[in-house]
């Protein structure tokens, strides 16, 4: 089996799951967190995090040296852009609004690799919600976006 090194081989897959669109996203897009094979949350573009203010503030260190496939660096500004984009929409996520951040949630860039979320109320589910906030490079947002070019709206397309 190929353990490390250059990717090798092709597989053909048939996935009738109604969540196939989501799995394609998870296989191609970076988020601050992802699911491990056992289903638990683990860091992805996020290096570490800290809760503060009894769940009202979440500080995230963004992994250094990470780049999008087009070569653009993935920094705190990429995370800020993803946050600004997702907050444009009332119901961006097809599974439902349970993945929304509460209205009034803010994000500030604290450094090239640091962001701080502030929630109007404690949000213990916020780490999981970060997986629904897909972090993309600038040409994506300026081009197709999540339904922007094709549908003229990001509602339900994240």
């Amino acid at each position, binding site marked *: *089996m190929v353990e490390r090194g250059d990717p090798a081989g092709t597989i053909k897959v048939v996935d009738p799951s109604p969540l196939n669109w989501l799995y394609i996203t998870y296989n191609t897009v970076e988020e601050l967190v992802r699911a491990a094979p056992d289903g638990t949350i683990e860091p992805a573009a996020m290096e570490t995090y800290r809760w503060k203010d009894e769940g009202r503030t979440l500080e995230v260190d963004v992994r250094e040296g990470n780049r999008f496939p087009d070569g653009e660096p993935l920094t705190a500004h990429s995370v800020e852009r993803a946050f600004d984009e997702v907050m444009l929409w009332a119901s961006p996520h097809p599974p439902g609004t349970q993945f929304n951040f509460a209205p009034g949630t803010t994000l500030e860039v604290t450094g090239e690799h640091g962001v701080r979320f502030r929630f109007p109320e404690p949000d213990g589910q916020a780490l999981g919600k970060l997986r629904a906030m897909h972090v993309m490079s600038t040409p994506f947002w300026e081009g197709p976006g999540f339904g922007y070019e094709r549908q003229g709206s990001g509602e339900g397309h994240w």
Partner: protein
Amino acid sequence: MAVTQMDPFAATWLQREDRTSKVRLTANPDYWDKDRGPRLREVVLRNDLTPEEALDLVCTTEGEVDVVTEVSPADAEKVENSEHAELVSTEAIFTVAGVINRDAEGLPLADRRARLALNLAVDRERLVRETMFGRATPLAGLTPPAAVPEEGRLKPHSHDPGRAAELWNEARSETGGGERPLRVAALGGLEDVARAVAADLEGALSVGVEVVVYRGEEELPVRRRLAEKKLAQGWDVLILGHGAQFAESVVAELHRAFAGATGEFRAGPAVPEFESLFAELAAKTAPPEQAEVSQRIDRLVRDESLALSLCAPRALYAVNKHVDFTPYRTSFEFAETSVDDGHWSRR
């Protein structure tokens, strides 16, 4: 999209699929996490085959199909006995359960005793054995066992048809109703489950039970009507499957969906005790505290019978024998998947 609640705004999307015949994913060799992957150069998702055709091809050929997801438990043995494929499975964070319509006219389902009677009437061990071919685990509440450590797992309701009959008759005599047949509905591929549940209810409660199965395009209006909660539902118990994105978010996704104020599957009034616990959970950020409150919520769902708890099926995959595939409990990802030198794409 169906709006489930206006204040605060909550909604769920009702989707139709429009797939191209193939989707090609190409590896990003510069991805930062080299230990994880990608180990494959390319993944081609084929949408030009039915699941039946795909299963046949992965079992009997090489080079046509390497991985088929959502293998039915009824087909698992065929894969195990095949020349070219092996069965890969994992304990999925996925629940098969019944929505209990607590607003049902003519039945006492607003009464906890009647709902508990439904849960006691079902023989989960037999359900797992006969409809899931043993490839599932009985549920206690709504939390799939794979989402919690063994010591944190609740005990499922016992199978006690005698006690179920007593409770059903008590609820019926005090609150009225129960003269008409009970209507058990199911979505998608859960007809066998619905029929097994119906037989158990009929036998234990001495009631007539009708079974209705919504397939394909019929599912969407049923889901919409349930999510919107403006019109009466056409069933008393609706059996469906639902999963979570993370082990840590099971309550936010499963329990909220079935019983929460914003729940797209809730059929009946919101439950103040549930909402209070759900708010308590939202304020917790430490994993042990989240787990403790999550267990209390699952216990409330079990003890109040806010759903008909059934089983957690394993996720089953048919995989070509030259493919080393890592199954995920909540997702379907290829980063760790690799192929050996004998695979058709590397010969």
